[in-house]
């Protein structure tokens, strides 16, 4: 009885281990490379977005919407227009947040725990596999034409805050960015129509 349970546990452990191993299998690695190439071919983008945050401290989710701008390889701008205007700019490893007259600048090197939130999307858009794998252990769930990149932060400080970033899309278009925080809170950003 006990021996059987122990064997069951061993099988379970093997299955758990097999998950991440599978991502490193040659076929998947090639598929990831191909996806990265497709994504990296896009030099700039301008789209609308809506975002919903589910936070335990709040009674209702927070909803916001605005525009995302991307210039390859390392400039990402998130302009929130509603409910209150805010502009976040990620450029060359620095995050600056402007609300009203005030701009706050954060060096991501000084706040590595924030890196997954912004770098995950940036590196995905840039098709920068090396940057993704430096920050995350990457798992690709492929269901052509749809795909999902599950990114788990490697850095311990980041992992205490963020459990996983899930970016999914269709062919060369990113469709949603979901952030699962370690405390159970989560946010879902949905990308809408393309803007001129």
């Amino acid at each position: 009885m006990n021996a059987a349970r122990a064997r069951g546990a061993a099988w379970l452990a093997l299955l758990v281990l097999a998950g991440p191993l599978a991502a490193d299998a040659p076929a998947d690695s090639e598929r990831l490379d191909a996806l990265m190439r497709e994504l990296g071919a896009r030099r700039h983008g301008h789209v609308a977005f809506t975002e919903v945050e589910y936070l335990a401290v709040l009674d209702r989710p927070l909803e916001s919407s605005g525009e995302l701008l991307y210039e390859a390889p390392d400039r990402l701008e998130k302009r929130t227009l509603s409910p209150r205007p805010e502009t976040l700019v990620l450029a060359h490893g620095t995050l600056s947040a402007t609300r009203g007259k005030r701009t706050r600048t954060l060096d991501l090197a000084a706040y590595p725990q924030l890196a997954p939130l912004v770098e995950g999307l940036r590196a995905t858009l840039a098709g920068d596999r090396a940057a993704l794998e430096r920050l995350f252990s990457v798992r690709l769930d492929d269901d052509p034409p749809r795909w999902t990149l599950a990114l788990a932060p490697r850095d311990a400080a980041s992992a205490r805050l963020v459990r996983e970033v899930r970016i999914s899309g269709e062919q060369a278009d990113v469709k949603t960015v979901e952030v699962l925080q370690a405390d159970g809170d989560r946010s879902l950003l949905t990308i809408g129509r393309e803007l001129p």
Partner: protein
Amino acid sequence: MTRAGWTGTLLFALLAATAASLAVRARYTADLSAFLPRAPTVAQRLLTEELRAGFASRLLMIAIEGADAHTRSRVAADLTRRLRESPAFADVSDGDSAGLTRIEDFLLAHRYQLSDAVTPERFTAAGLHRAIGDTLGLLASPEGLLVKPLFARDPTGETLHLLDGLDAPQIASFEGVWSSRDGRRALLLAQTTALGSDTDAQEKACAAIRSAFAAAAAAFSPPGALSLRLSGPAMFAVTSRAVIRAQVMRLSTLGALLIAALLLFAYRSLPALLLTFVPVAAGALAGVAVVSLGFGVVHGITLGFGITLIGEAVDYAIYLLIQSGEEPVSEWRRTLWPTVRLGMLTSVCGFAALVPSGFQGLAQLGLYSIAGLVAAAGVTRFVLPEWRPRTLRTRDLTALGARLARLLAAPRHARTALAVLALLAGLVLIGHRGALFSRELSDLSPIPVADQELDATLRGDLGTPDARYLVVVSAPGTGGALAGAEVLSARLQTLVEAGVLGGFESPSRFLPSAATQRARQASLPAPDELAARLDQALAGMPVSASRLAPFLADVEAARTAPPLTPRELAGTPFGSALDALLTVSGTHATAFLPISAPGGADLSTAALEAVRAAVAAPALESAASARLLDLKAEADGLYAHYLTQAVSLSLAGLAAIVLLLMVACSPVRALRIVAPLGLAVLTVAAGLAAAGERLGILHVVGMLLIVAVGSNYALFFDRLAREPHDRVPRTLASLAVANLATVTGFGVLAFSSVPVLAALGRTTAPGALLALVFSALLAPRAALEVAP
């Protein structure tokens, strides 16, 4: 030995024993600030206080180099942990979140007393609605991760507002440990408990860092893979002292050895050599003893000048031993001692002029030399002849002297040539007049350029710029100083917003005045009132009042909290920040507000004017006063003041020497004695200027030494002109040997890496040689005539 000889020896032994016991018990110091002023102006007094005890003087920057970034970070974290346990350090940080967490905890606990956003308006329903709305906006952004844990206690975002206000410098980091921008060093900042002026304690602190580093490095890396670099004012003080100490030891030993070799060659007699050093040792001992009595403390650099004393005091015994030759000592005492005595007195006159100097180093040097020369001459006159064995025979230098005399008498147009030389030297000096004198205090620093560059690099990486401009508020009592700092902060803030200033620090940011704290507490509504307003404020928001119960509890606790005082801040990062910016001595408090230019450059004249106007505007508490301090300008001004003083005191010394000679000889003879010395000084000054060296205080002192030492030579030539010719060769030989000894003693100094010692050597060594040659060339012909 005669009865007088026994008496002299006994007296000498007594005095020497007294001097030795004084010298042993004397307090020795080496920090440059002790070398600084008896404070001519209030601004300069503040400057020296800041140098001595200020926060900046207690800061040590620690860099770890070598191996890989990961190892460096781990060793740095371990070193930080070790140093935090040591009582030698008030605060140690390496950029780890533990440091930030400690700050956040403190800010969170006292936010309603510390935050300038706390006003009655903010706690109305509308104000709360806006503040909480802002925080909700943040929650949705990446920074929300940092804010979220505090939301229930601090929905108005006071803690983040305070953190924003801290203006923490952006420092690069790797794995949570500060690193240099080029990523090659891990960095730490340590603040010592001891004052910056306490060089002994600073030395211990540096040693503690080194041993903690050795232990940390051994735990994580192979031996020798990592190295430690330290920098900061305290480190500079420690290094300066070590460098000065080492060089003084090495150079005086080297100088003494060279002079001993020279004298052994000249005398061919070991007893004669030993006798020669008796007056030197007596002089050095007397010098230290008298300086210790007069000043209470002996500066390391003063000891360094012991070498200068060897240069001159050694001459007395040389004169006695070579000049007296075979004849009885009583004859030397009668004929030549008066000349030596007059020479000694002229030197004393010269050095006496330095004693009233406000520059403690100069004053000590003056007193040291006077005591040393009087003692050395006294021992030569009263003790040495008695100790001299009857059988003592030194080498006969008559032939050498005769040859020298003929050589020096040979040039026919010497006077014309010297006149041309004087003209040329004058022209060179006029040509360099704009850049003749050094203007920067830093020129005195013995710190190698490489170390100064490392310091600048580390400061750049750590964002701890050398504060150049300070607004200083003085008031009776901490409260007054903080209130004054608050008023000025508001004015400086408008200048920052106008782009005139880059930023500023103020102690009131870390500890608001009691009145301000009370006003903020009075802005907080009572519990029922706050609950009602909160309900109103949250209408339509995605959060309900029930989740914000911790907020209501915190506000109520803050409303009735006692005001924060420096005591509550002690031991927190805010406490050390406050210590840095607020000093209290007795009932008097001084607040320092360092200001910086936009972009970190120097402030423009217009910006300085704007700050001055802001500082001068009234409405400070009546007893408080404020001023703007430009540390670099004040330091350089201070230096210029001492340089001017050194020049005028030296000129006064020169005047005293001329006056003494006029009284002792005659005006014409006095002029003839002084002329070659003046020419030597002129030539050396022109030579240094032509070589691109800027003249500083120690060059000026060196010139005074040229006159002091050279006057002996000139006096002998004056004397020789009225002596039997058979004395000429032997006297000339003694002058040559004495001169060589002097040139050797000072020549060794010229190679020192300590600027003050090098300046002295480079001036006096060539100057003494020139003084002898010029004195001979300008001497009456009779002085160089040799009996056939």
